[in-house]
């Protein structure tokens, strides 16, 4: 099926491959990291940071799901916010790249880790600076948190046309599938009923991501939600859709080699 089989023709595809390798290397080197959602979210972030739609000197990106920071670090390093070598300090003592995203890292606007707060924070930013856009990335599992729904209600009340909420919908959380832990059912319908404009998209397809980001940016009256259907651990066969790869310690050497080989061919 077309979904989840991203066309390799897009110019950003090679970046999707090399940044996946960065993520694998940095997490394996650290012996810690949320690799599943880093690999599910990385294409969303690549599309966002390589699009000319946003100027992140003025527009703001908020990572609400702070645990998937490895993909953000890889994308920020690639975008020149800091040297790529620094990725190897991830989660080390004294590193600017903390285990969950913090404002100590150049390019990171919000210190996160406790789920469910970033969308509310983004509302504050969007209210205070209506001339610029705020893009918030959360996870599907994060929608277990009641605060997310408080924020979804409030964004509609305040007519925040400058707010975009992207959901990395990979269908997994720490202890199982989202369906098993707490069913989200039709998330798009829920956002829609709460007054948002909603688009569901293949979160690994750059053509689609670019189109939908533009459309969402142009929504000037309603807050816009992008539900990016993604695959946990995308690119590494044994990690894909396997919630046990929500987070990892050091991979066994043979698994690391398998993962690296697969990503090199991504």
């Amino acid at each position, binding site marked *: 099926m077309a979904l989840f089989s991203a066309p390799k023709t897009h110019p950003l595809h090679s970046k999707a491959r090399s940044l996946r390798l960065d993520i694998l290397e940095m997490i394996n080197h650290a012996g810690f990291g949320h690799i599943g959602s880093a690999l599910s979210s990385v294409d969303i972030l690549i599309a966002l940071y390589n699009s000319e739609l946003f100027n992140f000197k003025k527009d703001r990106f908020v990572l609400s799901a702070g645990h998937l920071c490895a993909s953000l670090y890889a994308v920020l390093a690639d975008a020149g916010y800091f040297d790529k070598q620094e990725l190897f300090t991830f989660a080390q003592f004294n590193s600017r790249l903390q285990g969950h995203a*913090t*404002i100590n890292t150049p390019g990171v*606007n*919000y*210190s*996160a*880790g*406790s789920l*469910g*707060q*970033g969308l*509310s*924070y*983004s*509302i*504050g*930013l*969007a*209210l*205070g*600076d209506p001339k610029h856009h705020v893009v918030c990335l959360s996870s599907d599992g994060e929608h277990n948190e*009641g*605060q997310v729904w*408080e*924020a979804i*209600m*409030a964004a509609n009340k*305040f007519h925040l046309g400058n707010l975009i909420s992207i959901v990395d919908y990979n269908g997994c959380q720490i202890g199982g599938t989202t369906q098993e832990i707490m069913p989200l059912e039709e998330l798009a319908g829920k956002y829609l009923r709460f007054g948002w404009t909603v688009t569901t998209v293949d979160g690994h397809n750059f053509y689609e991501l670019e189109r939908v980001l533009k459309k969402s940016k142009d929504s000037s009256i309603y807050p816009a939600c992008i539900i990016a259907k993604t695959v946990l651990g995308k690119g590494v066969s044994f990690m894909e859709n396997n919630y046990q790869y929500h987070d990892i310690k050091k991979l066994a050497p043979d698994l690391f080699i398998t993962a690296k080989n697969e990503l090199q061919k991504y």
Partner: protein
Amino acid sequence: MSSKNTKLASMRRAFGEALFALALKNPNLYVIDADLYPSLYLTDFKARFRSRFIQVGVAENNAAAIAAGLSVTGKTVFLTSFACFSPAINWATIRQSICYNHHPVKIVGSHAGLMSADLGASHQMLEDVALMRTLPNMEVFAPIDASELKIMLPVIAYSQTSAYLRLVRPDTPLVNSARSFTIGKSRFLKRGDKITVLGYGPILTQLLLPDFDKFSLDIINCSSIKPLDDKTILTSIKKTGRCLVIEDHQQNGGLGEAVAKLILTSGQKCKFVHLGVDNAFGQSAHNYFDLYHHYALSPLAIRESLKKLLSTHAHS
């Protein structure tokens, strides 16, 4: 409480009026309200500064993180609710979105303590000071009366640190005579040389009863709970060798614990009594005097404690 002729005033009304006055001068002053603005006397603020009054409903977590985000854009943000909801419900949001992210949001928690008598234990927030004084990048203040609130508020508003401001529900005695407030500075309400008395909020005014003059009390208003005025406290204790701490709050985690640690760390010898709620919830009563009596915080309990302190040798 200090005498029958003492004037009473509402700390909450003073807050509403003082914030209105500040907002007239500062076009960047915003209120994020969790549907309790009438109780915080913000009805006039809401009417006059419509675009700067943001109503988020009964959703204190959302309110705290919106306040944090809004402050990034250069606004001075007050987050208003009752203490039993904010900072009680939204403590983890305050911890991450406000403190960890270094945003100088001002959190106003009203209806603190047993003073919210008839509302019952759910609303009688007795843990707020404990919750807030443990947070890095957070200052904690509790005015003794409406007058002190008015001199505190502008100072807190323009401080670049996040702050918690503790207010109470009833009209309380006006005792403050100071004209200015400095963060981290306490002030004397009475001078004496036998017993140091420390506290914050209106409960401390009970110590001003003429009855207690015979005990020669050095009464210090610790309205700046964090940062605490260590120097003034220790200087007084060095003189008296006896210390009574009183607060309308749990003993656990309260000012008393902060002072006990301060004294122990300093190496000074001191007789010490801590009056506060002892590991219990409150309950309803028609007036808070009945509750203060029940929880051993009334003038009767204070007198007993002062006697006990005087019956022992200081510095021994």
